[in-house]
């Protein structure tokens, strides 16, 4: 067993020399010394055990090899001076790690949304983003993340985005003066996507840089597993799922029937079955339900 550690447990909060705990002669007779300390060139020690928080004990040990001078009382006193700082630093580490874990958990949850989310600071510098935003930024032609900054190809829209982020992140009185702004970006071939820039809740700390949130809404951004998710929620057959997604993508029933190589009668029967399973009576209700229910946007 670790003789120093075991014996120092009775002197928590106190800096000690190895000789305060166990004599050099006795130490050198232990299995622990011969198996672990000697091969690691550890012989002399000045150390301490101290409580960081209730239930959390830290130990610091500083060692010298056998051929070096032993630690002295002044080393013990110096470590005693350092102990309050070590305690405080370890407390801060624990808190920061807990915050980090919370942040990672939040972004893990955001990753399952089909809406792109970015947190940016002034100058559109991206501080964090979810998987959907990352995927979209890689494939979109009108938008990209370059050198850590979100950029729109159109200079006018890019300037508008910067101004919106600047305004949303400004919080001179503890809350943002901006209610947010939506920028519609042409994406080619008659398609568009929308960027919604909004303020984040104010941070009471003045040392944290101001941040804004950007939400990207693109119907085509629904993850591949979205269809599987909806299919599972409503217990749809594969054919019914294909029909539903054709309607969600703006196809008419007759067009779907033609594309799928089925008769219009079969398509109508499938649609009735979709209505029955989803509790909708009309196509417009069905489409509204699919896009309005936030749970269905999770995958």
């Amino acid at each position, binding site marked *: *067993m670790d003789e120093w550690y075991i014996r120092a447990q009775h002197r928590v909060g106190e800096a000690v020399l190895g000789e305060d705990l166990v004599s050099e002669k006795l130490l050198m007779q232990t299995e622990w010394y011969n*198996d672990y300390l000697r091969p*690691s060139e*550890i012989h002399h020690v000045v150390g301490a055990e101290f409580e960081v928080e209730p239930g959390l004990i830290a130990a610091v040990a500083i*060692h010298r090899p056998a051929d070096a001078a032993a630690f002295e009382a002044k080393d013990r006193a110096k470590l005693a*001076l*350092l102990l309050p700082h070590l305690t405080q630093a*370890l407390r*801060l*580490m624990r808190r920061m790690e807990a915050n980090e874990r919370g942040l990672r958990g939040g972004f893990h949850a955001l990753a399952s949304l089909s809406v792109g989310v970015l947190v940016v600071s002034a100058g559109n510098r991206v501080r964090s983003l979810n998987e959907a935003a990352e995927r979209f930024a890689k494939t979109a032609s009108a938008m990209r993340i370059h050198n850590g900054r979100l950029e729109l190809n159109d200079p006018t829209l890019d300037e508008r985005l910067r101004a919106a982020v600047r305004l949303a992140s400004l919080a001179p009185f503890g809350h943002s003066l901006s209610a947010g702004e939506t920028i519609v970006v042409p994406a080619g071939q008659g398609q568009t996507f929308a960027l919604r820039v909004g303020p984040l809740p104010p941070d009471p700390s003045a040392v944290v840089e101001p941040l804004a949130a950007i939400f990207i809404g693109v119907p085509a951004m629904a993850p591949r597993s979205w269809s599987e998710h909806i299919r599972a929620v409503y217990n749809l057959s594969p054919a019914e799922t294909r029909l539903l997604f054709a309607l969600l993508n703006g196809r008419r029933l007759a067009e779907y029937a033609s594309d799928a190589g089925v008769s219009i009668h079969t398509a109508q029967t499938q649609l009735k079955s979709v209505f029955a399973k989803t509790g909708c009576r009309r196509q417009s209700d069905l489409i509204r339900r699919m896009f309005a229910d936030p749970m269905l946007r999770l995958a």
Partner: protein
Amino acid sequence: MRLSEVSLRRSRYKSLSTSLNIDPHQFSALLRDLYAATSDVTIRAALADRLAANFAARSCMLQVRDLHSSKVSAVSATKNVLAKWQAYAQHY
């Protein structure tokens, strides 16, 4: 805290550090690194080397033990300690 108490604490610290022959610049550089290590994992990894050097040593280990789970984790350790850390944590 009143100003007189602050002055008293400062003078006590000054006299203590002087009597221990502590270089105040070295000590404050160590404190700077110690607090920087709270948010910077690179500085944290090198913290054991910094602590050892400050005590004219080459070996150091800083570890925490959670009494509820009995889990021991190394916060920072010098190479000689890290080399045998796994065996140490399992055996001792």
